[in-house]
């Protein structure tokens, strides 16, 4: 009589039957699927991060062209009396010939042979070069008549050429630059007049118009984002903590409390764009708050992040053991005193962690900002006071990135990726602070 074991293994415990082999193979395959799933997700993360870094780092370097410009008196100050109002009457068009003259002289001095006209030579400079010259002259009218050394931004195509983004074959259909201009750029590089340096203007500067991708920066939109995050912090933290204390410590068990709780968990899952519609309808159309203002953005993001903050604050409050409350009540503290003097301080690290994560979420959110008008214009000046920082139109970091991604000139894409690096740096540091807070202060009971 054969046992079932014999039937499967052919009589030996040391040999695997075909069925066992099949089951083990299935086991290995199943495990491999799991490993593959993890590997794919991590690979995607790596691809995403390397794409961001490889495409965005270029924005932190910028090409500059050094030129000697003679500030001709007869062009800039015909009357010769250094009167500022007269000097200001010369528009940027009046400065363009100076730049043309300067670059022709430089090319002649270097002995470079080129068939380019002066206008084409000046085309390797940014369109903002004349404005830069004019600003300098208005600030230093005393230098009129001298020859001054300037560092001009190179045009975005020249910048791309130095960064390897633009090559002679890629510009065949490009009206903004010709191969001859690139030859000139090559000889200027050999002469040491064109160089790439760290681009602080990308971090502190303002957005620039469609024509000048090389001058666009994130600075003003960073200020916009910061003022929004401040509004969120000032409103969402007290309201969120108050709501959590009520629900966790005082709320009677009745249907009203149930409705509030269900409401909060549902609000956490409402698409962010719906909050944008709410902001547009209530804050802008009904309350007539200014369009595109960081205050409105902050209000919308407050409503959006409140559920997140309430959920994490409630978790932090309920993690404080009941013995603390019992002890406080036992020595005669009122329920309110128990919460504010004992429970809340012990829950503070958890609350702060949750709040920081909520703020990070608010900082990265874009969709509601599109609806309240924080895209579509060039935020060119930094706000000059707190009130104007909150009320005058501004952009925000993600909205600025979206704006650049929409523009036609591919030179803006580098800016968009660079902006993402900056945005992610902010988010990473906020999350790091949250992690450190949790590690450092959170108590296990």
């Amino acid at each position, binding site marked *: 009589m054969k046992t079932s074991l014999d039937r499967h293994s052919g009589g030996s415990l040391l040999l695997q039957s075909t069925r066992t082999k099949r*089951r*083990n193979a*299935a*086991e290995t395959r*199943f*495990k491999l699927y*799991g490993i593959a*799933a*993890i590997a*794919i*997700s*991590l690979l*995607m*993360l790596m691809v*995403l991060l390397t*794409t*961001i870094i490889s*495409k965005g780092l270029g924005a932190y370097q910028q090409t500059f062209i050094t030129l000697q410009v003679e500030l001709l008196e007869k062009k800039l100050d015909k009357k010769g009396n250094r009167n500022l109002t007269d000097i200001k009457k010369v528009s940027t068009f009046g400065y363009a010939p100076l730049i043309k003259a300067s670059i022709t002289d430089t090319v002649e001095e270097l002995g470079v042979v080129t068939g380019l006209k002066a206008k084409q030579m000046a085309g390797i400079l940014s369109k903002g070069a004349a404005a830069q010259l004019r600003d300098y002259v208005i600030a230093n009218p005393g230098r009129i008549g001298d020859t001054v050394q300037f560092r001009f931004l190179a045009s975005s195509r020249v910048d791309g050429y130095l960064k390897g983004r633009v090559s002679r074959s890629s510009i065949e259909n490009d009206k903004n630059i010709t191969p001859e201009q690139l030859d000139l750029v090559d000889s200027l590089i050999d002469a040491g007049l064109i160089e790439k340096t760290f681009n602080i203007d990308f971090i502190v500067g303002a957005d620039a118009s469609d024509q000048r991708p090389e001058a666009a920066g994130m600075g003003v939109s960073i200020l916009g984002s910061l003022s929004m995050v401040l509004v969120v912090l000032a409103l969402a933290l007290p*309201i969120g903590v*108050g709501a959590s*204390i*009520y*629900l966790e410590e*005082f709320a009677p068990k009745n249907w009203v409390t149930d409705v*509030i709780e269900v409401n909060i968990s*549902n*609000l956490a*899952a*409402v*698409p*962010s*764009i*719906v*909050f944008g*519609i*709410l902001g547009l*309808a*209530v804050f802008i*159309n009904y*309350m*007539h708050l200014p369009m595109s203002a960081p205050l409105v953005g902050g209000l919308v993001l407050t409503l959006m992040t*409140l559920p997140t903050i*309430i959920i994490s604050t409630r978790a932090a409050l309920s993690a404080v053991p009941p013995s603390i409350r019992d002890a406080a009540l036992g020595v005669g503290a*009122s329920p*309110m005193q128990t919460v504010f003097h004992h429970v809340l301080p012990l829950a503070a690290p958890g609350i702060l962690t949750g709040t920081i994560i909520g703020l990070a979420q608010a*900082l*990265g*959110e*874009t*969709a509601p900002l*599109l*609806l309240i*008008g924080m895209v*579509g214009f060039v935020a060119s000046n930094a706000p000059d006071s707190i*009130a104007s920082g909150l009320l005058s139109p501004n952009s925000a970091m993600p909205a600025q990135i*979206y704006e650049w*991604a929409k523009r036609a000139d591919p030179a803006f*894409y580098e800016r*968009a990726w660079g902006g*993402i690096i900056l945005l992610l740096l902010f988010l990473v540091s906020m999350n790091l602070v949250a992690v450190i807070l949790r590690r450092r202060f959170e108590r296990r009971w």
Partner: protein
Amino acid sequence: MPTFWLVACLFLMSAAGFVLGRYRAVLSAGGEVRKLHSLPSYYGYNVALSTLLPALAALALWSILQPLVIDARVSGKISTDLNSDNTSAELMMSDVQRVSEGLNIAVARNEMTNEEIRVMDADAVDLRGRLADLGIALGSEVRPEILTAARQHRDMTHSGRLMMTIVVVLLAIVGFARSYGLTDKDFRARNVVERCVFALLALAASLAILTTVGIVFSMLFETISFFGLHSWKDFFLGTTWAPNFRGDSELSILPLLWGTIYISLIALLVAVPIGLYAAIYLSEYASSSTRSFAKPLLEILAGIPTIVYGLFALLTVGPMLVRIFGRGTEGLLGLTWMTGATSVLTAGLVMGIMLIPFVSSLSDDIINAVPQSMRDASLGLGATKSETVRQVVIPAALPGIVGAVLLAASRAIGETMIVVMGAGAIAKFSTNPLESMTTITTRIVSQLTGDTDFASPETLVAFALGLSLFVLTLGLNILALAIVRTYREQYD
């Protein structure tokens, strides 16, 4: 910013109230604190709160109601004066508001004086030109009756603000005087203050309800006026989305809904298998060191803002797909199936990547909630690990996993930035994943950005779309949470 100063003034008064109230309480007990009913600072808080809260509440209420009252009175006057119907009065009202706003800005910048405005004659002065110089664009020339109404609007706003300031300050003073008078060593200050704080806490908690009510009503009113201008049959049952400015737009939600569902489906096809297998591996197979390394990395994917995924779709994944499926002989496969970078597949793939950590962390929780005894029993009977997972753990966790997938679906449907940048703008019914299609969220963004006229169905349709989106995601969420909750209770 007079409101700012008013609020600052209130806070200053309340701070002074704190100091005075505390001082008076201590004085009433003759300096002996233990004779007081409550701790001295409670007397201070009592005075401070009764100075601040009624005044602040009045300020908030007045600022919300005043524009309503004034608008109603001015527009009522316009429609009786001109004998016109309601809609044109509404249109004129927005002109009136713009003119009065413009005049305010002009005065604030010292370009005009109040005196000048009072005697201004709309026919004689080029008000439109002057306001345009200040950056306020008006749709048409300012007619005399609009100027009159705007003048009236300004006067009423002005006197309203003055009255508000007086009322608010009076309330603060009365509140201060009353609570200061009550301050005495036998006064139960702590009870009063705690009741007040309790009310504030309850108010904060009910803000959540207020937000929901705000969301629903803000969209409901605009949706109702949309259905007044456009037939609801076309919106729910039509087949074409073609807004134009000639007044015969076809605005149907169905093609948009199809695009939304198609993209979400592709996203779920990517996210659910990968996320589920990742969760199974992490909870059943991985060593604790692998888990502590892989889990945070997966969570990074969840923390990346959607604008980053949008840019990734637009600039990396889209062009990559075009290189594979398009460009004819220059492409990798020699195909010409795909022309532009935006497509259903682009948006779906990237959204799938975004949803992987969402699915995996939810499934992870659910798989971990299956009791260990069930696994032990299965393993003890001789099943392999994978057989245990497939035949015991997954069936036990299935309702929870279904809930997780529904939550992911609701996320996908409401996602905006990825589809705005990756999906395209063409509304159509098509099953080709390489064509660009559009979604509900994309159309909301495009109808509500740029120049919008809140009296046209082309703009108002966005609110109807928003309400549909809200109802759709809310339904999915409630269903998913109900499933997850019933399941969780099963093993608790």
